[in-house]
């Protein structure tokens, strides 16, 4: 992409330079006198121009009627220099306050931020790496309207990214990620369940190699990505070389992860008291467990574990050839012992201008990662699950040396020590392109993009684990190849004051995926962790699938004075659909900057924007539309086949239509900038697994039914509070309010997901549904009074069957005198109302302080942990507050029920508002303190830069949530079962110290 920017500039600037009359020359430097290489110089009101060379100098032929030069450079304010008749001009550019002159990549063309009419958030490389253990996704938090949620705290764990709300139920809600113009494969490639959590396909991109990320949010910018763009598009541009001195930079950091807090679970003696109350005997008498043992499981599985990052990069080049190369090493051990993510990455980006007719470009990234995972949430073999629930009277090790366990729960220490689960990825993402200019104004480009994933998982479960008695080996592989051929033709020209840029193209994409999987059991001993030693193969499977996508695109951008207009169109044909293969996606936008030529009132920019467009979502299974019979239904040793899916040959894309209105303004010499947006997104033809009567043999069929709406407001404000030579202070505020509503479903039937999540018309996605508690019965009289409420002689039922004093009372929503399913109602919602952050950047001389507060308000968490750890009905260890607060006699309050067993305790554990907690939080997400040695000092010892820093992530969190952390989802990447916590590994706090060296 970088090269493409250059091409456009060259095109804009290089034309018609032969009409010479006079030669002007000069240098362009920054305010410290450092030459700016590649700054563009344009004769105002012409297309004549050039770029500065390696020393920041330029020469240019100008006609006698030329009045001024427009000088611009990324990251600096453009400057208009009047031509006074002199032949030499030394131009000093000031750094750009709020970045209006930055070039952002939008779709297939670069645009100055000033000229944007769509809605785009940009994230700089500095912000991308601000977080310790950074990932591509974590940086997106900085963008207004983007909600980023890490579903658990394991390094290498997956994320949920939502750009402007949730648009889909069944297809993916993740934005499309495009690396250097190549849409890459995202999601989780794992075939191994470790609870609700998958792996993160974007962990294969080293954030340190990223120059910038752009989040395309409105439909005029996303429509050009057509059928995959309904959830927004994230464009990732990797670093490229700059002409000039070869720069070597080495960054190294070392730090640790730690768990932020722990859940207060009873110790051994208290547990023994609990069991006495529950079962009427000591743990010794009832279970044969020594009641004097007291294992603090959380203490045993969480630790301060190290992480480190090393990055070496080299960049440079001359006017014709530029390069950027890097090597990276990351080793991140999670706060939970046994979790570890290691990555080796390499990158080589080359740009070569072969002639004024031909430019060649290549970007190539390779990563090898090793993700060690352990059994997670919602799983009795999970380390955190067992650390909460396993009684403290169970010893870490029995006298015979084996791991202690109970009730089928894994020993948490064993889960972290001996369970071996590695996901190893080898991945290559790259592209090569050739651009040919038959005439200056036309660029013909051919590009080949590749995303090749070789993902392998190996699990060894020794017999010392509860999940296997004989030892088990599980191996699987997932080999995925995506090849993209892209052919585009671009025209850049201007007619008088109107400049025009237009691209047409054709893109062909093919994905091939091969997977296999096997499990074998019964190893001779734990010393033989290999598949060929196993006696009994159990599951063996393999499949192949894939898809093709053919696309044709056209875009036009027109710019005249303060008027900006853009139109785009994409036609996508996908193999995933049978009868409705083709979809058409238009986008248009227009804007006018009232302050384009001169200040209007106090405003240096006052631009109104409007856009409209359609995008699609085709993220469904490759063969999901086809009615199929599948194998794998064998009986003993006889192979079998069964009807595996109903299919739906008439399935179409989900279509999202978005309208966006925006206002951008800038004040006070570009020291204050604001971007405001209002949008309405309507998604129609929702691809739903529409429930059908299970008497058909199927529970659902895939169909286009239902619709959804997201309405929102976004604001991004930038204040350059102080901008002096030795002191600067910038504050960026972002806030987004989004309202999601399901507007139609099949026959408007609700659908249930997760533990207590219901999808229903009129409610937002991720709403919780259940009973509403109304205190605790303090005495029998209250129960008798309720039992008298039911006056229907045909219904011989108590208000709550089996209720006794100390049990929860529920609200009888329909007033029929009995509590049953009909009394359930909506009790909370997982989606936040208001999200955003405040980012402050201060620098004083060499000292820098950056800190970023993130907030999420109005979201609830369904804390299903409480059903077990505060159920007070089972052998599972209760929390201290539940045990101490348990109802024991009249007047004991309404928080916790009595300690009771058997089926009657079921009443107290029904899905209810008891488990819904406010998940709002404000977090000091990242903070960095850095000191860069003065140049005068470093240059003496041969360094361009010596900078030391300390930084932290998730430093302080303010929240009322009672469990580990409200940013959690036990259902991983589920679209609908959101905001549910069930024995999930919490995110950790990370502190890091490091050094940046530049030569």
């Amino acid at each position: 992409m970088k090269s493409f920017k250059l091409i456009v500039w060259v095109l804009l600037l290089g034309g018609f330079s032969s009409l010479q009359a006079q030669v002007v020359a000069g240098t362009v430097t920054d305010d410290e006198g450092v030459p700016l290489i590649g700054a563009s110089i344009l004769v105002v009101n012409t297309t004549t121009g050039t770029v500065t060379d390696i020393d920041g100098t330029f020469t240019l032929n100008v006609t006698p009627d030329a009045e001024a030069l427009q000088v611009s450079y990324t990251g600096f304010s453009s400057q208009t220099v009047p031509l006074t008749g002199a032949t030499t001009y030394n131009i000093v550019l000031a750094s750009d306050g709020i970045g209006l002159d930055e070039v952002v990549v939008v779709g297939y063309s670069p645009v100055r931020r000033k000229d944007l009419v769509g809605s785009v958030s940009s994230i700089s490389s500095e912000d991308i790496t601000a977080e310790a253990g950074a990932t591509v996704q974590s940086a997106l938090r900085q963008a207004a309207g983007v909600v980023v949620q890490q579903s658990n705290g394991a390094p290498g764990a997956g994320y949920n990214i939502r750009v402007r709300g949730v648009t889909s139920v069944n297809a993916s809600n993740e934005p499309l990620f495009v690396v250097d113009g190549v849409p890459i494969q995202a999601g989780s490639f794992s075939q191994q369940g470790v609870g609700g959590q998958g792996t993160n396909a974007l962990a294969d991109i080293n954030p340190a190699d990223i120059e910038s990320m752009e989040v395309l949010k409105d439909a005029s910018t996303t429509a050009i990505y057509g059928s995959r763009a309904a959830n927004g598009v994230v464009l990732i541009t990797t670093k490229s070389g700059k002409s000039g001195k070869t720069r070597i930079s080495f960054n190294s950091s070392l730090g640790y992860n730690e768990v932020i807090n722990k859940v207060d679970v009873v110790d051994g003696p208290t547990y023994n008291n609990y069991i006495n109350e529950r079962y009427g005997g000591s743990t010794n008498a009832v279970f044969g467990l020594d009641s004097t043992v007291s294992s603090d499981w959380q203490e045993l599985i969480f630790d301060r574990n190290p992480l480190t990052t090393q990055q070496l990069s080299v960049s440079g080049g001359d006017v014709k050839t530029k390069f950027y190369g890097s090597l990276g090493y990351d080793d991140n051990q999670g706060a939970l012992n046994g979790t570890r993510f290691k990555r080796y990455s390499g990158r080589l980006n080359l740009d070569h201008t072969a002639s004024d007719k031909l430019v060649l470009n290549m970007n190539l990234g390779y990563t090898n990662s090793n993700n060690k995972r352990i059994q997670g949430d919602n799983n009795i073999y999970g380390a955190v699950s067992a650390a909460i629930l396993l009684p403290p009277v169970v010893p870490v090790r029995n006298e015979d040396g084996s791991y202690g366990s109970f009730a089928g729960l894994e020993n948490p220490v064993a889960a972290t020590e001996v369970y071996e689960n590695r996901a190893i990825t080898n991945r290559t993402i790259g592209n090569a392109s050739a651009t040919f200019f038959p005439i200056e104004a036309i660029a013909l480009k051919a590009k080949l993009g590749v995303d090749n994933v070789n993902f392998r998982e190996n699990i060894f479960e020794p017999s010392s684990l509860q999940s296997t008695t004989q030892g088990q080996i599980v191996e699987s592989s997932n080999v995925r190849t995506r090849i993209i051929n892209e052919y585009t033709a671009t025209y850049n020209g201007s007619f008088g004051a109107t400049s025009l840029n237009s691209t047409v193209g054709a893109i062909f994409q093919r994905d091939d995926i091969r997977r296999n999987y096997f499990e074998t059991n019964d190893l001779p001993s734990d010393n033989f962790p290999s598949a060929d030693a196993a006696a009994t193969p159990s599951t063996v499977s393999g499949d192949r699938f894939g898809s093709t996508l053919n696309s044709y695109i056209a875009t036009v951008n027109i710019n005249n004075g303060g008027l900006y207009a853009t139109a785009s169109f994409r036609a996508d044909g996908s193999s995933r659909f049978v009868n409705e293969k083709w979809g058409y996606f238009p986008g248009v936008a227009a804007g006018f900057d009232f302050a384009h030529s001169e200040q209007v009132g106090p405003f240096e920019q006052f631009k109104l924007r409007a856009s409209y467009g359609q995008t699609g979502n085709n993220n469904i299974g490759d063969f999901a539309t086809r009615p199929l019979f599948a194998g794998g239904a064998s009986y003993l040793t006889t192979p079998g086949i069964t009807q595996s899916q109903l299919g739906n040959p008439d399935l179409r894309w989900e279509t999202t239509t978005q309208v966006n209105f925006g206002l951008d303004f800038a004040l006070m010499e570009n020291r204050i900038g604001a971007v405001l947006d209002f949008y309405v997104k309507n998604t129609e033809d929702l691809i739903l697994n529409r429930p059908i009567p299970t008497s058909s043999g199927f529970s659902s069929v895939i169909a286009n039914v239902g619709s959804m709406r997201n309405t929102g407001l976004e604001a991004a404000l930038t204040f350059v509070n102080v901008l002096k030579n030795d002191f600067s202070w910038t504050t960026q505020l972002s806030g987004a309010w989004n309202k999601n509503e399901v507007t139609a479903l099949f026959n408007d039937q609700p659908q249930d997901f997760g533990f207590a999540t219901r999808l229903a018309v009129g409610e937002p996605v991720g709403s919780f549904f259940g009973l509403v508690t109304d205190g605790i019965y303090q005495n029998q009289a209250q129960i008798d009074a309720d039992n008298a409420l039911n006056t229907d002689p045909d219904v011989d039922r108590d208000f709550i069957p089996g209720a006794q004093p100390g049990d929860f009372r529920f609200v009888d929503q329909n007033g029929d005198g009995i509590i049953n399913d009909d009394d359930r109602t909506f009790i909370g919602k997982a989606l936040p109302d208001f999200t955003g952050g405040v980012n402050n950047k201060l620098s004083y001389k060499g000292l820098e302080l950056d800190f970023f507060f993130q907030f999420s308000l109005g979201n609830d968490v369904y804390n299903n942990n409480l059903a077990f750890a505060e159920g007070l009905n089972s052998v599972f260890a209760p929390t201290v507050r539940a045990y101490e607060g348990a109802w024991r006699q009249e007047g004991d309050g309404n928080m916790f029920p009595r300690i009771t067993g058997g089926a009657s305790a079921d009443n107290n554990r029904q899905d209810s508002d008891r488990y819904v907690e406010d998940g709002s939080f404000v977090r000091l997400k990242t903070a960095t303190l850095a000191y860069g040695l003065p140049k005068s000092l470093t240059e003496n010892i041969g360094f361009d830069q010596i900078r030391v820093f300390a930084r932290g992530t998730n430093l302080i969190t303010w929240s009322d949530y009672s469990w580990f952390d409200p940013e959690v989802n036990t259902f991983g990447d589920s679209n609908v079962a959101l905001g549910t916590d069930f024995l999930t590994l919490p995110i950790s706090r990370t502190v890091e110290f490091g050094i940046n060296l530049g030569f």
Partner: protein
Amino acid sequence: MIKQLVNLTMGVVLVAGISGCDTYALDAVQPIDSVPLDLAVTDAKSAGAARAGVYDELQDADLTFDGYIASYTYFSDDTDWTGTFPTRAQFDTYNVLPSNGTMAAFWGAYYEVINTANNLLNILPSVEDASLTDETRNSFLAEARFGRAIAYFHLVTGWGGVPLILTPTVGVGEELNVPASSAELVYEQVISDAQFAADNLGSGTLGMNPEAANALLARVALMQGRYEDAGNFATSAIGEDYDLTDVPYLEDEIFYLEFSSTDGQSNAFFFGPDALGGRYSIAPSAKLFDAYEDGDTRKALSVDTLGGRRYGLKYNDFSAAAGSQSDPIYFFRAAEQVLILSEVAARNGDFDTAEMWINQVRTRSGLDDIEDMDDSNYLDYILQERYVELAMEGGFRLWDLRRTGRAVDVLGPDGYDPCDAVWPFPQSNIDTNTALEQNNCCNC
């Protein structure tokens, strides 16, 4: 140089464009592990595979524990709920709600068996393959129909009348809205399917046999009070002059649904106490535990205690992990048929024959003969014997108490009401099947 590069570039574009036609065509990628319906069953081999699919659906994880065993036995004095899933507890407390997800899961799993059978029944008659003899073809059809009969039998004993679906699911429109048939009609279908199976199951089946089909017919006849039929079918199932006494307990198989370590189940995991690596979700009731007479050799093969807690051990592959356990599901045993013959004889007033049959069961179990059977006590004797003989093997206890009208008397103190004769239809089906009206269950 430039020109060459240009030519090269243009050439690449051209070649990519041409070669792209095949590689990037919208029908270039086709599935290999699944095939469209019309290619699925085309010859004897694939028909055999589709027939194996019926057994595989019978093995569904939602059926092996909850479907066949847990729900019916919790819902009686056979077993108690000792687990952690509230939806299972609802069966133990006779308080099954329409929203019960466990119930919805095994309801759906029965219909998956039915749809798999319906698919084969629909397509097999028109498959042309010279190697497919009429005998084999009919035997495959009989396996499908017997699988369907087993599924409908469980549905009708759980919910009474249910939607009776006999054609494979293809369309997803109005045809999915099927009202509940009467229980009588469902039983008629079970009988018709089982009779076809009894007549046509051949030698090449994967375990189903005519004797098992007769055993199901005898069981149904007994439930419907057609005692003479029950006697005849039972005789067909085990043969004239059958002698159980030398056959070890649980080895009197007529037809068991088999499992292996590679095609396993999890019942031992659910029954097993912690010390044996189990989840202990289910336990024999105290009443069942005490129902074994002194000296009953079946007790040690059925129930035990560990750490003061009762547990069941009819599914005892405790050493294997959940999902890899190879205990069978005891669908049809000769002892049940022997006890049917005893009951039929007693109901005819032939107490000598009745004693002869019941004492075969008792002798094998090391118990003294019953010699004082008469009109006043025969049913107590037989129900007691069936209680312990067939404990934890399925819904036998619940079915016995219901068919003899004793359910409310025996289970009432624990919460069983007359309306508990049926479970509610799953709410998901009420919501999606516009022709289905909720039945007369207690929570409906």
